[in-house]
């Protein structure tokens, strides 16, 4: 048994390790950029609503429409659809670098929606109390809206991250690698079922771990 394992590791260990690194790179970088874009978008979606601090019908409708359009496109189509855009931004359309742009375009609107629903849960009265104390709107956004919804935000980001891991499986199509790609190329196309089982197992552990971490962090941040 142990001989078998060491034989497997000798043969595939390096590839699997490389794939893990690639997945973490893709997920980590695109998640970071997506949050930086998605959180402000979510805030805008909440604040430009009718009767909110920055009420703006045109902007609100435009944002809604754009987010809905992007979210309608399956990732695998999006990946090819925006190739020229990717080339313009990243300078390349292949490898980890080339896949970050489509991953962000795919994830940021999703995060914006998740943030929107989290922020909408915040009690309007608290926001009002802070307005009544003469606190500036930008401070209210961070210290009331984001702070009070931080538990829901963490849960939302957990969901988004897991979705992102799923999307990276398709990144192999532009040569970015990663765990999903490894399972597909070796496991499916070359019938190396052991490789497929191991990578799928690793993905399960990853997703389980993330969800548990997200749940417990969210519970710890919640104080009511």
């Amino acid at each position, binding site marked *: 048994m142990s001989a078998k394992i060491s034989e497997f590791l000798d043969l595939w260990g390096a590839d699997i390790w490389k794939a893990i690194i690639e997945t973490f790179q893709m997920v980590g970088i695109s998640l970071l950029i997506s949050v930086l874009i998605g959180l402000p978008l979510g805030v805008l979606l909440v604040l430009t609503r009718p009767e909110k601090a920055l009420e703006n019908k045109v902007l609100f409708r435009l944002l809604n429409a754009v987010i809905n359009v992007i979210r309608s496109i399956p990732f695998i189509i999006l990946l090819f659809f925006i190739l020229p855009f990717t080339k313009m931004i990243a300078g390349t359309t292949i490898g980890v670098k080339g896949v970050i742009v489509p991953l962000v375009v795919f994830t940021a609107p999703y995060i914006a929606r998740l943030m929107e629903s989290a922020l909408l849960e915040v009690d309007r009265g608290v926001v009002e109390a802070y307005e009544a104390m003469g606190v500036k709107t930008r401070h209210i956004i961070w*210290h009331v809206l984001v702070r009070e919804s931080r538990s829901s935000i963490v849960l939302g980001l957990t969901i988004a991250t897991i979705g992102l891991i799923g999307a990276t499986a398709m990144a192999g199509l532009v040569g970015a690698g990663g765990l999903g790609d490894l399972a597909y190329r070796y496991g499916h196309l070359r019938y190396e079922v052991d490789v497929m089982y191991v990578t799928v197992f690793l993905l399960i552990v990853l997703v389980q771990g993330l969800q548990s971490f997200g749940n417990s962090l969210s519970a710890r941040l919640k104080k009511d």
Partner: protein
Amino acid sequence: MIRLENITKTYKSGETVTKAVDDVSLQVEKGSIYGVIGYSGAGKSTLVRMVNLLERPTDGKVFINDIELTSLSTGKLQKTRQRIGMIFQSFNLLKTGTVHQNIAIPLKLTGVPKKEIEKRVAKYLEIVGLSDKRDAYPSQLSGGQKQRVAIARALAHEPEVLLCDEATSALDPDTTESILALLEQINRDFGITILLITHEMHVVQKICHEVAVMENGKVIEQGRVVDIFSQPATSTAKRFVQSLFQDELPEALVTRLKESGQIVNLSFIGERSGSPALAHVSKKFDVYPSILAGNITQLKDQPFGRLVVHLEGNADETNRAVAFLEESGVVVEGYVQEVEAHVS
């Protein structure tokens, strides 16, 4: 000092236009406690929210210490709002913050230096009696304690004016008492002007110097609390006073008693609450007074008594008895049966 000049607020939804507040003017003197009372939907909540422009009046002007709020830029308005505290029915604390953070964060965000923040948090927690709850979260506090934190949060900005939007409506009677006592103490010790709105006459009776009665967006009656208590002019004000005294008589009894004399409401204010005016009446005139209902209550500064009395005798004698009572400083009003049922 708070001054509202011809404040109007209208809401449009589609074709229908609703006037929530209709041409209201009132003035709250520096250092006084002013109550606005009304049934739900009277527009009182909209009114108080227009004082710090949480709602912008459609028409009219708001002055605080002679600064016209309605003309200020956003930045200046924010600065001025720091001098106007507000507490709410639902407390509106940060759920994710401790008691300490709930008071300290708004101070930090409005530019109070760190050392000063710590001093103020400690000072005002002491005043509201929650020094030992410094690190508790709102979910671990009772309703009354949450309102105390909200009061400390408001006081920590050292405001000149405190607005109370139904601040005791979500609390049980005992807690209401203690919060009212705290508000009174704040008014007395710091000279903070308080404008409160409520639907409970009890609150007005307990702590207010002056009161305005609101109905359908309008102020229908305003004046010193003792005057509204002794001589309410409108039926709404009468109902509010009635709500405290519970001296409504059965209709059959009223009809029967009116055949043999008159029924009168007597109000005794201040020192006179103790004078034996009725005893004199029975000695001086051919009249037999019998007390049908009565109560003495404590207004903010003086006792206030109310009796419903049947004066048995012929019309001449009872009229002379009434005149005598009025001369001796008792407010006399004919007893009117409240027939219309009120939906609140």
